[in-house]
């Protein structure tokens, strides 16, 4: 049998004949979707208001095939005639096509809702307004989530048996252990790059040795924790959002709630705890890898031997630098986790919404991590650390 595109179907025709006082249009051929492009002009010509007769008819006797598209076009023609005040009839309709025409006769009776029109200024103002209200809504949502998590944590303190230890270990494996290789690799490369750039530019002043100071302070205080946080936000924050979001879409979260579990206890708290435990460890490992990479480049590219590098390192940094970097890590973890879980639980029914919230989760987490880092840097500077 032939495929549809090459189907042996006659092209549709619509010929006008004058029968007495009536004008009869004889329809023939296949009135189907493949021919819709040709049918529309035929219909438009036939529904011309300047018809010479008050009574019109359409003869369907020679139509081989009819589908919803063809039937609708006939209905459109009949309606146009009725609107023009003509008396219209359909004749010669084969029995098996009757049902279809009756079905389309009921369709599109209600006028289509006109599309809303917007003024450009109005749209702009509306967008600004929505933006502002979204920002406040986001902050409110984060504060609410922080509150709920705190309450959940207090519940655990009161009844330690309710703590989901297994779940925490599972997430610790995923966001901690499994993230180690990629974090080590990226921070190592970052250390190498900083060292190379530092040596290249410091060499002009004959101050290569200060590269060690720069790398160690930069990495331990800022780059280590910020870089690792950004990677964790991209790697684990997005996963949290997508997991919770798809659970929300599939009503799993409603199911939990109806069984008497608070989603925050079961889903959010273990994830947050895992993140808060994992991020300082990852930061430590990342900083070490960056220092190692920096040391390696200093040796191979800058001619600073490892002994000199280490002795210089001892002079350049104090425990303070190390502590300042590491203290920030749990806060970053809390921000990433809160943003990711809030966004995950805000997902609505559609796949698009899941994508939007996952994107938002990463973007907001990265933004907040950097802003927080800035504030903490000011704080530590003012307490003289």
């Amino acid at each position, binding site marked *: 049998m032939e495929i549809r595109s090459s189907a042996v179907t006659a092209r549709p025709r619509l010929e006008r004949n004058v029968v007495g006082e009536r004008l009869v249009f004889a329809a023939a051929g296949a009135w189907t979707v493949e021919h819709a*492009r040709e049918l529309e002009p035929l219909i438009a010509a036939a529904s011309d208001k300047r018809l010479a007769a008050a009574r019109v008819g359409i003869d369907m006797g020679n139509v081989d095939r009819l589908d919803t598209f063809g039937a609708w076009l006939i209905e459109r023609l009949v309606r146009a005639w009725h609107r023009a005040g003509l008396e219209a009839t359909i004749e010669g309709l084969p029995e098996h096509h009757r049902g279809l025409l009756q079905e389309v006769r009921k369709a599109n009776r209600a006028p289509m809702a006109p599309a809303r029109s917007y003024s450009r200024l109005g749209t702009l103002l509306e967008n600004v307004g929505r933006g502002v209200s979204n920002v406040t809504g986001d902050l409110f949502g984060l504060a609410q989530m922080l509150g709920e998590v705190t309450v959940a944590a207090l519940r655990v303190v009161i009844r330690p048996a309710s703590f989901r230890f297994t779940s925490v270990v599972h997430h610790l494996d995923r966001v901690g252990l499994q993230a180690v290789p990629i974090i080590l690799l990226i921070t190592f490369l970052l250390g190498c790059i900083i060292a190379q750039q530092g040596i290249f530019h410091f060499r002009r002043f004959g101050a290569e040795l200060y590269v060690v100071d720069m790398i160690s302070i930069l990495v331990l205080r800022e780059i280590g924790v910020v870089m690792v946080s950004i990677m964790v936000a991209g790697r684990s924050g997005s996963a949290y959002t997508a997991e919770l979001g798809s659970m929300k879409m599939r009503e799993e979260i409603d199911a939990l709630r109806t069984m008497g579990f608070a989603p925050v206890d079961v889903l959010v708290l273990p994830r947050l705890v895992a993140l808060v435990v994992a991020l300082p460890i990852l930061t430590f490992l990342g900083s070490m890898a960056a220092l190692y990479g920096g040391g390696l480049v200093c040796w191979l590219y800058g001619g600073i031997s490892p002994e000199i590098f280490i002795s210089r390192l001892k002079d350049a940094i104090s425990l303070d630098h190390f502590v300042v970097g590491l203290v920030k890590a749990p806060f970053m973890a809390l921000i990433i986790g809160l943003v990711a879980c809030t966004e995950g639980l805000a997902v609505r029914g559609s796949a698009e919404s899941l994508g939007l919230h996952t994107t938002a989760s990463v973007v907001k987490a990265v933004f907040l991590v950097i802003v927080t880092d800035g504030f903490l840097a000011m704080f530590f500077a003012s307490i003289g650390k």
Partner: protein
Amino acid sequence: MNMAHAGNEAVIRVRDLVVGFNGMTVLDHLSLDVFRGEILGFVGGSGAGKSVLMRTIIGLLPKRAGTIEVFGFDFGRASERERRATEQRWGILFQQGALFSSLTVRQNVQFPMREYLDLSERLVDEVAMAKLEMVGLTPDVADKFPSELSGGMTKRVALARALALDPEIVFLDEPTSGLDPIGAGAFDDLIRTLQRTLGLTVFMVTHDLDSLHTVCDRIAVLADGRVVVDGPIATMLASDHPWVKAYFRGKRTRVGAPADQ
């Protein structure tokens, strides 16, 4: 109505089909014909492979052996162009509706029309609305998103989308599951009406005994990986196959339900 299709052209012809996953054989040398213009009810226990057969016919699952011909084409050997042409001639109603969640109801129905056909914007709009009304939805549903619909409405929209291109075959995967008996009955009527007006061939995977009694011209029973019995409801009631007996004459069948017994 029942025997009107006997001797008619088979639009789907499945021969010796073998389908399996990781060492497990689900369909074992299954053969089945679906004739033009009939409503075939396909039944079988949960996990027997009903959906697997449907998904294999429409090309979503690979087969190990056997042939599947749709409109006389061996689908496994068809060229890309023939496949696409065939795909325009069938519509599929998935069990969960499978509506595109980021499009509105109207856009869902218009999607296949826009992709495959070159139509004027006005015609696409009008026909999409006509389809929605044909499946019994009111125009105000058109601008809703799938997540805002009830189960029954989702099924109707999915049916309207399956019918968007005026297909010759529609595959329905458990169309009445999750609907209340009244809604399910209305859906059965709808399928019957549309089948008559559009001249559809319907391949319906179902568990709903009422649907089998009221709308199906022919029923095929899947057990042990093959079709064990097929025929009208009377054949089912007369069958001695233990599973068919348990299914059609079990506790859940109502006394005196079929009129043509």
